[in-house]
């Protein structure tokens, strides 16, 4: 990484660490949410920005992981050290099953993931004897980390930050790796990839499972943050909003999904304080992003930087 990039990361890290010192618990909580949904958006973006497939079922992995952890802890008293990995496993396993969707491309893939995600929502909603139906699962305890109970906004925020730092470091290597390049190759020209010797279906399958794992991780963090989960967590709007966040922030980048999450949740938080038409506003944001900012914040920043650089070199 260049010196510039190290400095950038340093600044970001310092800012992130400083948040709870300057923000109250409400804002710290909001930023924690932004990080969690940013991770969900990152999960979606592995498929979208790298492999070129738009999945709208990732809320299913998110939700199943959350429910698994919640039910184990609340109803069976299982400690977090077991419940959290179990949640991760359940969500990822669902990802392995739903990965059959990679037998399709383009529109078919979108439609199938939409339907698959809906099935999970429907099961969570109807199987109320197990899932609690609309009421969901409540009173999920915060995990205890080597004696430290993470029940303040500040402590939980730092916990999420640490988890994210590890995940992002790994994700960065993943997308820069040969495997990461194969995904971008598939997106650029799948026919050329098969001609070059790649079994593209296998690569997409693995990518999908990894992306389901990341979504599951977001789900586990979410259920600990929220201390509650219900079928809304598996709903289509959650999935498609994750897609929008990735695009708004800049698809194909590492920071993009988090920037998008910040912009989206920040906007929704702000707007909901004075307008009743929440969903309509979200809808307009979708439309506006697609029409006027499809490259997102990172794309815009890159273009500005490139222009500056080429402007500077002509002087």
């Amino acid at each position: 990484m260049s010196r510039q990039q190290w400095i950038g990361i340093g600044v970001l890290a310092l800012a992130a660490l400083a948040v709870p010192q300057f923000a109250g618990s409400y804002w710290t909580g909001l930023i924690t949410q932004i990080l969690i949904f940013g991770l969900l958006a990152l999960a979606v973006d592995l498929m979208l920005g790298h492999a070129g497939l738009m999945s709208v079922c990732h809320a299913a992995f998110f939700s199943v992981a959350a429910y698994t952890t919640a039910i184990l802890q609340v109803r069976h008293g299982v400690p977090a050290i077991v419940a959290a990995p179990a949640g991760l496993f359940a969500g990822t396993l669902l990802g392995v099953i739903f990965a059959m969707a990679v037998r399709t491309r383009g529109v078919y893939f979108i439609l199938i993931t939409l339907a698959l995600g809906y099935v999970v929502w429907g099961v969570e909603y109807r199987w109320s004897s197990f899932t609690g139906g609309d009421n969901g699962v409540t009173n999920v305890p915060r995990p205890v980390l080597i004696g430290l109970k993470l029940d303040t906004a500040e402590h939980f925020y730092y916990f999420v930050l640490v988890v994210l730092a590890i995940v992002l470091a790994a994700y960065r290597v993943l997308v820069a790796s040969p495997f990461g390049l194969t995904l971008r190759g598939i997106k650029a020209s799948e026919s050329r990839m098969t001609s070059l010797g790649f079994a593209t279906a296998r690569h997409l399958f693995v990518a999908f499972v990894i992306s389901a794992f990341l979504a599951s991780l977001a789900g586990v963090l979410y259920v600990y943050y929220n201390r509650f989960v219900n079928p809304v967590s598996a709903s289509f709007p959650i999935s498609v909003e994750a897609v929008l966040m990735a695009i708004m922030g800049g698809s194909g980048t590492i920071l993009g999904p988090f920037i998008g999450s910040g912009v989206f949740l920040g906007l929704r938080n702000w707007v909901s304080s004075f307008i009743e038409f929440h969903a309509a506003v979200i809808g307009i944001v979708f439309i506006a992003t697609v029409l006027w900012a499809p490259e997102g914040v990172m794309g815009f920043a890159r273009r500005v930087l490139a222009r500056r650089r080429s402007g500077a070199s002509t002087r």
Partner: protein
Amino acid sequence: MTGAVLQAINGISFAALLFLVASGFTLSFGLMRVVNMAHGAYYLIGGYVGLSVVRATGNFWLAIAAGGIAVVLLGFLVDRFLLRHAGDNHLAQTLLTVGLAFVVGDVALHIWGGDSLKLQVPMFLRGATELPGDIVYPTYRLALVLFGVIVAIVLWLVYRKTQLGAVIRAGVDDREMVAATGINVDRLFVLVSALASFLAGMSGVVGGAFLTLHPGAEWEILVYALVVVIVGGLGSLEGAMIGALIVGLLDAFGRWLLPEFSYFVLFAPMAVLLLVRPRGLFGEAH
């Protein structure tokens, strides 16, 4: 035994509605390569408009026409001002139409409220009919089956037996070629899009008389329609018919035998299709 027969009729009558909804979606994609995630919102708004018309005039047929036309107008505006910017980009189309669906759903919520509403069925279709085997079944749902069959036959005849249908089929097959033969492709698209919109709006009225209209209904019906076209194959009219039957029957029997898992039953045909024939029963290789 009677239970099974009852569920079969339930399934078939639901299939009739699903066909009405899915046929518009599949034609839209087949010819214009447009994926319209607001198709469910079209259904909902058509239904609500029809509801208001029935409340005001008591005339069900007028309601069907009004619901259909309202969506035709909406659809025209959407095509002209929104979808034209997305071109063939399915990702963009999806996000644009999802955004549109959010807006339409929210507007509908504020106009018609959050309660579950039902349209009043016309007098002559109220009550139940006696069927052989001591089965008493709501007349309206039987009429729905008849209506669905009639629409299916009309659509099929137009699609397979008329000049217009031939042009549409040619366009589905190769859009550039059709344009090259001098046929006004734009007008063709407007026509087919209007037809798809009308079907969506009309099915909202027809469906709203036995299923309820409520916030969220636009997504529920869309998902069913999507499973229908996934199973039947995108762009295929015959696929929409067969797919609707399969989904309708599976849904009815699923609800009867495994009420808590009925949504899971929808998953099964999709999984089978995906593993065996990803493009659907009648879908084209893409």
